[in-house]
């Protein structure tokens, strides 16, 4: 890029890349960002207030728009045209990608729960997986800064799985809805607490962003900036410093090295011309998503790095984790025909069920090592392509049933922690390339007993809560191996370039700096040493802010 003397090149404009860019740009460092997808402007492209009737197929999802017509994801989903991925034998894995500025932050669920002291030192506690190379106390102030900048609504609960934020950091959460209050009462009877969900949704205005007006689903994107996405916040704020420039439609092919094996450039495909462009780079931050960054490192093979860049440990692509996912839903007779009011709220959980089992774990009462939480699906939703209930007959009788069932269903969705295992990893498929000639990722996956036992426990607990609410189940629960969703399906893939204490068994140090190449950093979820059940994006951003701040100090000291 002419006349722009950048110090750092960042690959990816999602949660990690945008936070790193913002942090560096604010610290006065010039940053060039490469994004594989197209430019995207939520202010003009978000379908605010559109109804399903205005969309093809009443907004229903399909292979073109997996999460429904209005889902914000552009040129992506479970498949990206002409950019395949493959899976090994007996491996089910699904990989969600977006090809747009802001990446997956444009559509994410905005659930923003801090990891706790338990989460960073799981191995110390139960001998499984890997510890993170720092304690919760190290990250706590960075969580405060990130939550303040991003804007998180929620409350401090004092629960052992939900560390408190500093005073004044959180914005007030919205009031809970009726079905959530019923879940709360039922869970309480079983000794399980519920809590306001923490979400990256403004309930008070901030910077150029408005407060939520409690309508139109966040997954569509948010033109007023209330629901956090990097395209309405970090990216424009970083650009305003004059220190960030962004090239879109730039698909990075490789990180290149000089004759000494030192990384000094990137090669990307300009998707508009199909031509390769080589870009000199002093410092490189990979934030292309856990699996894209690992793919890029593995594809950056050369004489000095025969197994791929930064892969002397052999851990690039290994330790791949997702969250476990399953759920149980039921019709709640007591909610039939209840008084209707506007239950849109901020269009996702106001209450949820945090993990309650730390004490049981400590006493050895559970037959699975790691925890989970429940998200609550309920409410008087906008009509769409599905109508719930076992509806019979026709005419007035039929409509009466539909109205009776409306808003009377409750679904408890489990999201749990999985442990890394030797069967879950990604590598490069040496037989398949994408449209640009770049070798594709090949995934291997197998759930372990740890996850299946956890899911079994979760299904039983969910049923107990729903039964306490008056639901009846005249069918047996599915077995855990049938009920558990596929690897990747919760879209929390992490761990493929994990951080650690030692170059022997990790890819980066605690700052996301690769052990092998001091000027190559990873700032996406690839660096996670474990995958707590609490949704990864807040921690991706927190780590990116902390680690980019450290990088900025290194740059200022002339260390890199």
């Amino acid at each position, binding site marked *: 890029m002419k006349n722009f003397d950048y110090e750092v090149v960042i690959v990816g404009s999602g949660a990690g890349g945008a936070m790193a860019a913002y942090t560096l740009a604010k610290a006065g460092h010039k940053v060039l960002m490469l994004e594989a997808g197209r430019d995207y402007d939520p202010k003009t492209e978000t379908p605010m207030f559109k109804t399903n009737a205005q969309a093809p197929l009443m907004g229903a999802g399909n292979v073109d*728009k997996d999460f429904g017509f209005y889902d914000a994801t552009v040129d992506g989903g479970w498949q990206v045209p002409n950019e395949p991925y493959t899976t090994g034998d007996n491996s089910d894995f699904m990989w969600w990608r977006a090809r747009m500025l802001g990446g997956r932050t444009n559509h994410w669920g905005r659930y923003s729960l801090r990891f706790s002291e338990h989460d960073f030192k799981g191995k110390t506690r139960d001998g499984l997986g890997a510890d993170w190379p720092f304690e919760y106390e190290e990250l706590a102030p960075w969580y405060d800064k990130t939550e303040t900048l991003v804007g998180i609504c929620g409350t401090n609960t004092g629960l052992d799985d939900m560390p408190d934020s500093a005073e004044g950091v959180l914005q007030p959460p919205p009031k809970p809805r009726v079905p959530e209050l019923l879940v709360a009462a039922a869970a309480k009877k079983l000794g399980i607490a519920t809590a306001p969900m923490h979400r990256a949704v403004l309930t008070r205005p901030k910077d150029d962003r408005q407060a939520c007006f409690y309508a139109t689903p966040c997954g569509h994107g948010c033109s007023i900036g209330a629901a956090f996405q990097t395209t309405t916040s970090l990216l424009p704020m970083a650009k305003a410093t004059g220190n960030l420039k962004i090239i879109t439609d730039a698909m990075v092919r490789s990180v290149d090295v000089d004759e000494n094996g030192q990384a000094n450039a990137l090669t990307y495909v300009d998707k508009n011309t199909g031509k390769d462009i080589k870009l000199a780079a002093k410092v490189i931050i990979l934030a292309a998503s856990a699996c894209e960054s690992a793919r890029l490192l593995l594809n950056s093979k050369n004489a000095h790095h025969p197994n791929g860049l930064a892969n002397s440990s052999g851990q690039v692509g290994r330790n791949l984790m997702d969250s476990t996912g399953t759920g149980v839903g039921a019709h709640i007779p007591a909610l039939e025909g209840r008084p209707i009011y506007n239950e849109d709220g901020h269009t996702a959980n106001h209450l949820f069920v945090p993990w309650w089992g730390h004490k049981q774990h400590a006493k050895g009462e559970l037959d699975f090592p790691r925890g989970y939480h429940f998200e609550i699906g309920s409410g008087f939703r906008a009509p769409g392509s599905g109508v719930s209930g076992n509806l019979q007959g026709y005419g007035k009788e039929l409509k009466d049933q539909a109205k009776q069932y409306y808003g009377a269903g409750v679904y408890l969705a489990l999201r749990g922690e999985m442990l890394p295992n030797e069967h879950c990893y990604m590598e490069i498929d040496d037989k398949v390339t994408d449209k640009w000639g770049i070798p594709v990722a090949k995934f291997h996956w197998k759930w372990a007993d740890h996850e299946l036992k956890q899911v079994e426990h979760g299904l039983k607990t969910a049923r107990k809560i729903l039964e306490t609410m008056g639901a009846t189940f005249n069918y047996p629960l599915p077995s855990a191996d049938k009920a558990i969703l596929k690897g990747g399906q919760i879209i929390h893939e992490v761990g493929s370039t994990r951080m650690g204490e030692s170059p022997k068994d990790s890819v980066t140090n605690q700052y996301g700096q690769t052990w092998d190449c001091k000027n190559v950093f990873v700032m996406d979820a690839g660096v996670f040493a474990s995958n707590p059940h609490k949704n990864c994006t807040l921690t991706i951003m927190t780590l990116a802010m902390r680690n980019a701040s450290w990088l900025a100090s290194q740059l200022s000291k002339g260390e890199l």
Partner: protein
Amino acid sequence: MSKLIKEDSDIQYKSTITRRESLKWLGILSATAVLPSLVGCEGNDSTTAISNAVGDSIKGHWPDLTLSPITVKGYGKDPSMIIPPKSPWPKTLTAEQLTLVAVLADILVPRDGDVPSATQVNVPDVVDEWVSAPYGRQQSDRLTILSALVWINDEAKLRFSKAFTALSANEQLKIIDDIAYQKDDLAEEFTKISRAFSRFRKLVLAAFYCSPEGTKDLGYLGNVPIAGDYPGPTDEAMLHLNQVLNDLGLA
């Protein structure tokens, strides 16, 4: 607003399509004889299915349709969401099929006081768009629903020697009453059609409740901006909840 027009005992679904299209459409209708199977499915002759079932040993008939797959493109991975595509793919229902869909849809969701019927809010057009879509789930529904349409017409001819749309309301309901309830003791010949009809019923209901009039009828109150904090449940809703908590012993 679309409607079913009753004229000289002929019945036809008139959608909100352009005048030019609708003239063409009416032309097709007027050229159609009343009695032969109204639902022709790409060369399949549904009468073969009937012949197997004539006589008093009716154990059920089912049209084994062979549908050619819909091969048009979908709307792709980057459609405009601000101005969604109006006609993302060609609609495929014939005028006769559309009319049958309209008659059935209005049996399922008839006009009710000020609340319009399914046909009056264009439900048949939504069904047509759905069964004409190139995606897996819709193509599966296409087979289910087109089979149900043929079955219903065949049944009408077996019982009353007329197409379904030519029957009296009373005669129509005699058939619908047999297929609209998925009970344990349902006669064997109605099990398959009752499942297919159930899928059709849910599609019609969804399309109806998606329409502005249907949404209002259902009672959905969201999708409106709120100034200030989210107000939460109304007093009435909280009173109801408290009663529920008492009843369940959760108070």
